[in-house]
């Protein structure tokens, strides 16, 4: 659906808690499919499915070496998502600042 939309693919990938947990593990360093499957008591193919989603979203890359195809985090991609979220935080903080002032004005009029 959104294969050419990196930001959307990243958000879709991040929407799954297991994938977020996989990313958290990869933040500590490269890991093989076996190493990733262990904490979830998940099968290799199940983990591989998640890794494919993460790879398509540009959040991880996987080495061709060996059967286990170790995965590693791609920080640039997460940075894009984080930056995007920061704009939201800024917008909301800004808006809530306006609400603060508005509430003060409202109460001053009544008081």
């Amino acid at each position, binding site marked *: 659906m*959104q294969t*050419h*939309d*990196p*930001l*959307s693919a*990243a*958000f879709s990938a*991040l*929407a799954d808690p297991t994938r*977020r947990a996989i*990313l*958290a593990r990869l*933040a500590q360093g490269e890991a093989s499919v076996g190493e990733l499957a262990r904490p979830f008591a998940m099968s290799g193919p199940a983990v591989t499915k998640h890794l494919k989603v993460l790879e398509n*979203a*540009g959040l991880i890359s996987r080495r061709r070496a060996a059967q286990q195809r170790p995965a590693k*985090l791609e*920080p*640039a*991609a*997460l*940075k*894009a*998502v*984080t*930056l*995007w*979220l*920061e*704009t*939201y*935080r*800024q*917008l*909301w*903080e*800004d*808006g*809530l*600042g*306006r*609400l*603060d*002032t*508005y*509430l*003060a004005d*409202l*109460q001053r009029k009544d008081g």
Partner: protein
Amino acid sequence: MSPKPALGAGHEVTIVRVFKAPIDLVFDCFTDPAHVAKWWGPTDCVNEVYAWEARPGGAISLRMAGPGFDHVMGGEFVSVDRPRRLVFLSKAFEAPGGGWGIVNRNTLTFETVEDGTRMTSHILVERAEGALVLGALGGLEMGWNLSLMRLEDLVGELTA
């Protein structure tokens, strides 16, 4: 920047704020269109509220205009539980063929505290179509500190 905080954030933003006002008034500011028109949006934003129906399934449509920006925010209310909880979807950047570029789920909870009302806002990005949004943003300046060029570069890195 360590990747760990970014992973914790994932696709959501949480903001907690205490307002020096009673809970009912704060809740009204989010549900009464007359109030919303006066404070919604960033600094210098002027609003025209077309719809703000605070009930499950109620429509949201408001035009936000300011220095360098002018767009319509759409959406709908999901649940309204006065005065403690409010959930609504906000949608921005409508595509020419229909559909929205950004869809966020906003969950606001309110509680009375010593100084007034504590509000916790939890914003979940359900959808963000990068290309569409970047095209629409163009030269927007909504008081964001973010450099759009930087974001574009980073999105470019994703596809490289």
